[in-house]
């Protein structure tokens, strides 16, 4: 058995424990070191995973329960990268709220650990346990800002809907287990034909769709993204979403290749509904964080096109899109986290004249929004182009057209924010707190990556295609 392959996960787990232990002994003024320790652990795990990905590692552990293939490693890299950005932004955010305790970092690290295990699972038991680790940590993170009732409400709504979906998922898994007599993904699908298999598959897909916030399992997302701490919202909308998508793709593509027909149509409808509802509902929002939440539902819809088309090109395009989506969406939520204090300040009017007050922040937010909208010279455009092109190629031209239409709709709300940023008249207000070094680094990296992958998308796309090669 190749335990060295698990080194990144071990580093992460060790860091989480070290942070919890150190938290007991550090005096309150030194808590920032815990954040730096977590960042070091995450960076080390990220480096290790990226090296494994570059080396094309393909390791199967515990009789195939756990599989570290390029597909898993690609998503682990995405999740770790997103977590590192989120962590950088969390440092000043938590300090401002007076909640910079070690528990936040430990919970974040354990959520990342769950996501990492999840994407590399090939067994339903392992998938379920890892997903619960991600979920339980996320519920606590969403309610972390306890003095604020909005945080508690965000946590409760996420929790109740999350647990409900996980119960449905479990029931679906139990049916698949009964049909096939196995929990192994490579065995389950072959023996799960028939109407009951479809019922089970819908229940299972629903459990993952909740984490992707796809229609009709999106109801929690606006409330939770708005009420949870901004860095946590950034984490849930990127890392958690990407991990759930990875598992869903793996379950469908490895376990049910024979039954492609019915679920492809199903995901075409889900993707179309997510794009429509997310983009239309975002139009009416005055709170920018809530607007971004609906935008995130729509972005999930674009990515789900890949599961409807289910060709290698399409899935590779979704990998590309999720990777660049991490940068632009964590970036957008991060800028908001700098502006908003405990008193709010995330309404459209609060962004008026930000370009004069904080030019760098305004420019960064503009880059992220332009990329989310899918304008030229940004990674968002390339991602959308690849997805829509793959849809046309795969015989889903109507879905691509649908996506283009709602992309145009999305311009209205993204550009409304830009208008407030650059052409709004700034009311006199206390200056926003200065960004710290780690937060500045995270934001700078996200901005740079958003532009860079827009101008030079080929290497990342090649990597995505390569990662897919060994999925089957």
């Amino acid at each position, binding site marked *: 058995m190749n335990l060295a392959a698990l080194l990144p996960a071990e580093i992460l787990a060790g860091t989480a424990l070290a942070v919890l232990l150190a938290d007991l002994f550090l005096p309150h003024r030194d808590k920032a070191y815990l954040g730096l320790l977590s960042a070091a652990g995450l960076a080390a795990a990220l480096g290790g995973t990226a090296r494994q990905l570059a080396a094309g590692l393909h390791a199967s552990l515990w009789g195939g329960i756990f599989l570290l293939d390029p597909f898993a490693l690609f998503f682990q890299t995405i999740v770790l990268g997103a977590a590192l950005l989120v962590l950088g932004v969390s440092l000043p955010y938590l300090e401002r709220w007076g909640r910079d305790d070690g528990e936040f970092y430990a919970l974040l690290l354990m959520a990342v650990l769950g996501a990492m295990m999840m994407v590399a699972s090939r067994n339903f038991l392992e998938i379920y346990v890892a997903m619960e680790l991600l979920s339980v940590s996320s519920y606590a993170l969403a309610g972390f800002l306890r003095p604020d009732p909005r945080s508690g409400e965000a946590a409760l709504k996420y929790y109740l809907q999350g647990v409900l979906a996980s119960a449905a998922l479990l029931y679906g898994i139990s049916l698949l287990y*009964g049909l096939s007599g196995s929990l192994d993904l490579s065995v389950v699908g072959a023996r799960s034909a028939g109407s009951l298999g479809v019922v089970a598959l819908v229940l299972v897909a629903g459990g993952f769709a909740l984490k992707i916030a796809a229609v009709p399992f999106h109801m929690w997302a606006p409330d939770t993204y708005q009420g949870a701490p901004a860095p946590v919202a950034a984490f849930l909308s990127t890392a958690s979403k990407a991990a759930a998508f990875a598992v869903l793709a793996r379950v469908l593509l490895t376990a049910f290749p024979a039954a492609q027909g019915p679920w492809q149509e199903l995901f075409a409808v889900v993707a179309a509904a997510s794009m429509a509802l997310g983009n239309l509902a975002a139009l009416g929002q005055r709170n920018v964080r809530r607007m971004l939440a609906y935008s995130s539902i729509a972005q999930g819809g674009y990515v789900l096109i890949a599961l409807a088309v289910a060709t290698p090109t399409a899935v590779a395009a979704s990998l590309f899109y999720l990777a660049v989506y991490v940068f632009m969406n964590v970036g957008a939520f991060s800028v908001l986290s700098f502006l908003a204090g405990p008193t709010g300040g995330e309404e459209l009017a609060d962004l008026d004249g930000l370009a004069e007050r904080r030019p760098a922040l305004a420019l960064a937010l503009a880059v992220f929004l332009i990329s989310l909208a899918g304008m030229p010279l940004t990674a968002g455009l390339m991602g959308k182009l690849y997805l829509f092109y793959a849809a046309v190629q795969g015989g889903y031209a109507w879905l691509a057209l649908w996506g283009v239409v709602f992309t145009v709709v999305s311009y209205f709300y993204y550009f409304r924010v830009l208008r407030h940023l650059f052409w709004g008249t700034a009311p006199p207000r206390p200056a926003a707190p200065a960004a710290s070094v780690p937060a500045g680094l995270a934001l700078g990296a996200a901005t740079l990556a958003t532009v860079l992958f827009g101008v030079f998308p080929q290497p990342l796309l090649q990597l995505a295609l390569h990662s897919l090669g060994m999925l089957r």
Partner: protein
Amino acid sequence: MPSLGDFLAVGAGLFVLGLFGALMKRTAVAVLMGIELMLNAANLNLVAFAAFSGRISGQIFALFVIALAAAEVAVGLAILLSLFRSRATVRMDDIDLLKG
């Protein structure tokens, strides 16, 4: 000797009843109890499948579910308590600060 189908029918009944409770109840505690019933329905399926196929993995899974559910319930009730302290309500209709 009852057949596998008998056990599955009981499990299906519990699942639907639990789902109904989870969707229809107005307080968070009651919703959570409905969800627990759904989890137990799935567990009954797993144990029944394990017994009728002679494979231990179903029982192992059920054991994990029991441990996971306990942890999950603890976190959920903690969220509820912390919300109750700041809002003095656990009725889903009253928990409405976030909307748009």
